[in-house]
């Protein structure tokens, strides 16, 4: 079967689909990822065959590629671009795959299938400390020099912990972390959830607000509003208190472990391959 995937936005929109794309290849299917110039490097770094589109017109290039290559299936994510419709292929079946564990899922109206979130956020060499627990709690902090994070770093400076900046591959870095502090983006939230790491979310956008609200409901996280912090007289103490609580109260770790268990029970990308074959009218 030939499967086309489109990477047209930012790398974070491509990453959740990389394990499924490779699951298809590992099952013997052909995969191509159409990418705009800014995303070509992200696609090839994932080891996936890339088709460059969008030097002039994304849609024209996609149509030309589809006419030539004739995919049996076009993949899109829950928030991905509706490629099949954009390129006028109403007969290509589409299906939404949702990588959220039940506790974090947003209500969706379209038909969807669950898929286990297998973290992928770019390739890289595993730093040797990542595979060993430290002497002190290890706290991972989003690599961001923007306002709240300067504050976070200064708040953490007198916590007895090892502070490490987030980097790819994040699921490797998080192995022996006791806490992660981040914005509440979907990839980071789910990667920490897979690892069973409690989270402190400093959220800003409506999407981050919505997802972090759900995460807090699971008991695996605390959250602070970036704008709220900015107005506080002593925001460092607020952050520090939250960090202390997340490290000291084992209920956060227990809830994070439950979330990780929930994810482990979801069908792995490899298990979705027969579903996609059936959707394309092939195989099982």
């Amino acid at each position, binding site marked *: 079967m030939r499967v086309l995937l489109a990477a047209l936005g930012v790398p974070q929109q491509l990453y959740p689909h*990389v*394990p*499924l794309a*490779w*699951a298809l*290849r*590992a*099952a*013997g299917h052909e995969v*191509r990822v159409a990418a705009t110039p800014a995303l*070509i490097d992200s696609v*090839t*770094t*994932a*080891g*996936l*065959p*890339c*088709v*460059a589109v969008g030097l002039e017109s994304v849609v024209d290039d996609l149509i*030309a*590629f589809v006419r*030539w*290559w004739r995919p049996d299936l076009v993949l899109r994510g829950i928030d991905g671009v509706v490629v099949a419709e954009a390129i006028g292929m109403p007969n290509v079946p589409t299906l939404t795959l949702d990588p959220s564990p039940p506790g974090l899922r947003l209500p969706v109206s379209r038909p969807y299938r669950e898929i*286990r979130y*297998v973290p*992928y956020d770019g*390739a*890289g*060499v*595993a730093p*040797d400390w990542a*595979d*060993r627990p430290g002497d002190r709690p290890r706290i991972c902090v989003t690599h961001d020099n923007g306002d709240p994070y300067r504050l976070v770093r200064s708040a953490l400076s007198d916590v007895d912990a090892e502070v490490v900046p987030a980097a790819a*591959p994040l*699921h*490797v870095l998080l192995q022996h972390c006791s806490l992660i502090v981040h914005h509440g983006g979907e990839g980071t939230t789910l990667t920490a959830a897979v690892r069973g790491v409690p989270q402190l979310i400093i959220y800003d956008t409506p999407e981050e607000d919505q997802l972090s609200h759900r995460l807090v409901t699971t008991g695996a996280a605390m959250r602070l509003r970036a704008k709220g912090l900015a107005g506080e007289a002593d925001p460092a103490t607020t952050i520090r208190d939250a960090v202390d609580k997340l490290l000291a109260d084992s209920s956060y770790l227990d809830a994070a472990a439950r979330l990780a268990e929930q994810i*482990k029970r979801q069908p*792995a*990308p*490899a*298990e979705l*391959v027969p579903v996609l074959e059936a959707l394309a009218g092939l195989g099982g």
Partner: protein
Amino acid sequence: MRVLFTSHGAAPHLFPMVPLAWAFRAAGHEVRIASQSRIRDVLVRNGIPAFEITGAPQWTEEQRRETVDAIYRQGPWPPRWATDLRLLNDDQRAYLEFIGRRLIATAEAMADELIEVGLAWRPDLIVYDQITFAGEVAAARLGVPAVRHLCGTVAFPRAEFDTTGEPLAEYAELFSSRGLPMVRDPQAFVDTTPPSMRVATEPNTVDVRYVPYNGPGIVPAWLAEPAHRPRVCVTWGHTAALALGGEASRPFLVALEAIAELDVEIVVVTTAAQIEQLTGLPPGTRTAASAPLHLILPYCDVLVQQGGDGTTLTAAACGVPQLAISRKPDAEVSPGQLVGVGAGIHLRYQEMRDDPDAKEIIRNAVEQLLVEPRYSDAARRLREEIESQPAPAEVVPTLTALAGQ
């Protein structure tokens, strides 16, 4: 489960394991790939988190030249030598053991770092490339099963054995110097060569479909343009380009001239550095720098290549008839097997080098591959045989069972 893949620093040995590594990952297992710094650029471009092994034998320039000379000064070896080492003379046997010792030296240089990585990460299973014996040593040290991943017909005869089939002393020392009992055979062999092309099969072999992965890359846009003439792809692989530099292309320059006399479109796939050094390409020749062959070959009618295992299997998986022009003994093995199944023609550069009729011989060979249906029929059968093998995803349960999971 945690699975550690490892290969020494050669892309043609790393690439064939990538689809299986991703099969484990896509089934929810944790995977890492460890290899040497010299291929860091491709090591971090397959999507699997990497361990970089910095240890490597410190060959002097003279020793390096000695290895390259030994490899490329060999005359043609007896046909089917790999299936019966008694066909070889003393010099040829000594050469095989010389190469074996060089490979064991690489394993020696990698082993301690690989063990250290393993002690920290604690894999449940180690999958190692056919000549990356450090994987077997690390598995012995960690007490976990090891699987040897073969990357083609050249897996046999086994490089760590002498020509009587006994382990070389240096192989045994990889273990004894670390206080470990020698492990002669891995728990299983993963073989992606289709059975009809195999030189030998170990009893505990897991058959796996060859899913081509030739490194990261982009589909050339011109592939979508209609081809008005048959398309012939010409390549000479990674290894020769690295070992020989500009000299690597020499056997193929004559081939390009020969093919240009036919009414075909020519596509040259090699490294950017090789392409830069090519002069006088036939007019209209397309070049594709380091493009993955598996993206191009489905749209080609014939492949002309150097006898590399990954190249041969990629074309086989794409159902393309092949002309191999080999110039070293290990590159004679897969072309020999290819001829055996009828899907190709094998010429030896050592015999062609001084032959005034070389160009005509090559042109006739390519023409036969293009027009005689027996070649395309055999190539199609070979492709069907490969497609009938279990995909990497299907053997994950077999391999996890080895680790008791």
